[in-house]
């Protein structure tokens, strides 16, 4: 369970987040959605401790999100930021091995090696293990980064718009994999999504932001309606229902 209490965030006199208090449930996939500039990524960055807290408190299962807990947090919460571009040359395997750093501080034990192998296998990267990242396609590189967060073996996985730059097949494969991690391994996944249809299809819980406030939250089937699109996104799109899942007509 991730608890956010009274979080405000101001940049140059502009209020990005306004006194947000929200509880993200343990287990399942929680998606943060909202129009551009609603504060999704800011909220994400605060939970991911990429931005220092100005006001308010955030805790992950009672563990306070603050610099003094950085090592404990890195074993509890893995993050995949929006754009990962590395200037360094690492092989896929070396990158995934760095995911074990919070557990072994670089001295890999046999269980760390086992976890690295498991991550490479889970993402179908075995044949690419010794390739340098800069020689891979964008999709493969992205997969390697997700594999690294997977190897970190945390209860919580935070992803900021992971579907950017992925084609439909890669997007669906990634979401299906996250679904499996949530269902089979009991991980809690918090994900910032642009595409409401992906959120409706794969998430268990939606948190809708608008103008720096939590507008509403709840189950996708109840949340994704024409009214939401009109009120929050300001567009009069139609919503169809396919197999009990709402579907926004583009």
């Amino acid at each position, binding site marked *: 369970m991730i608890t956010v209490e009274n979080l405000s965030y101001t940049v140059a006199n502009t209020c990005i987040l306004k006194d947000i208090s929200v509880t993200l449930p343990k287990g399942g996939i929680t998606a943060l959605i909202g129009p551009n500039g609603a504060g999704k990524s800011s909220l994400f960055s605060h939970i*991911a*401790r*990429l931005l220092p807290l100005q006001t308010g408190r955030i805790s992950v299962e009672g563990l306070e999100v603050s*610099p003094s807990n*950085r*090592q*404990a*947090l*890195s*074993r509890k919460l*893995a*993050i995949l*930021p929006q754009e*990962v*571009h*590395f*200037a*360094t*040359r*690492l*092989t896929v395997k*070396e990158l995934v091995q*760095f*995911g074990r*750093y*919070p557990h072994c*501080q*670089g001295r890999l034990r046999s269980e760390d090696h086992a976890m690295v192998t498991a991550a490479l296998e889970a993402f179908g990267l075995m044949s690419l293990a*010794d*390739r*340098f990242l*800069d*020689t891979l396609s964008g999709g493969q590189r992205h997969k390697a980064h997700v594999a690294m*967060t997977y190897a*970190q073996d945390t209860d919580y996985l935070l992803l900021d718009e992971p579907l950017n730059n992925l084609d439909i097949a890669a997007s669906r494969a990634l979401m299906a994999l996250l679904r499996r991690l949530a269902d089979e391994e009991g991980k809690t996944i918090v994900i910032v999504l642009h595409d409401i249809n992906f959120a409706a299809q794969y998430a268990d819980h939606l948190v809708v932001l608008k103008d720096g406030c939590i507008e509403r939250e709840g189950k996708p089937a109840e949340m994704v309606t024409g009214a939401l699109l009109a009120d929050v996104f300001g567009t009069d799109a139609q919503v169809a229902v396919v197999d009990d899942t709402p579907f926004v007509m583009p």
Partner: protein
Amino acid sequence: MQRRVSTLLLAVGTLFLAAISLFVGVIDLHPGEIWQGGEAFTLMLDSRLPRTLAAVIAGAALAVCGMIMQMLVRNRFVEPMTAGTGQGAALGILIVAVVFPSASILTKMSIATATALASSIGFLMIVRRLPAAQPLLVPLVAMIYGGIIGAGVAFFAYQWDMLQFIDTWLTGDFSGVMRGRYELLWIAAGMTLLTYLIADQFAIAGLGREASINLGLNYDQVLILGLLAISVVAALTVITVGAIPFVGLIVPNIVSRQFGDNLRATLPLTALCGASLVLASDIVGRVIRAPYEIPVGTVLGVIGAFVFLWLLYARPSHAR
């Protein structure tokens, strides 16, 4: 596997070059004479051995520091000696020479390290404001930044009538290395060994701030430790032999292309590569117009320019 073989080959190569360095010079020396004692033994102990050790240490330390700086700045085209750290150290030495001329060598070293650190931090602050999409801006800014500090050093040296000293600091040269005048470099060697202990943290810092925070690293602390190590090495090198350019630039680039950036595995290779490059350049400088010498800084300037052009145009190797 290939990394291990390469490390071994480079180690043998470095030893070979070191052996040559011991026996090349104005006075002819044969291996057999040393053990008979006398003049040959003294020459070896007072001049040739210190000179060779100084070249090995300076080369290895500067190459490793170049690699670390490239990780911290996240740019392949910077190195301490041209990005203000070396010039900062020279500024510190100048200040000591003018303000506290009778200061101990330790004070001299501390002040030079402090000014080197200050100018490195200044460089990092400027680089952080540059657009990430334009990596070539970084080396340009580095050159201008280093140039400005260097010009400041020259200006004050001129004002205080110390211009003749500048050359000894800003042009690396091993010809003055003798027993009793290079030992400070061992501190640089120790510093370089210490950086190896946190090689993983530098490699992760190279992945960026977000990845570092994700993995529970104290990112700011890693930055400061890295800059401190770079500043100590730069200051000690400038004090003892003068600035040696390009080693910190081309060696990390070559190693990274061939073996990647997993620093724990590649730092030993980087050190050996740097040591052999500086040794070889010093030998060339001694041989090419013997009995006179060309400073190692000049030799490396020429070699470095060509190797760097080659690096810019050659394609990196794709797999191990």
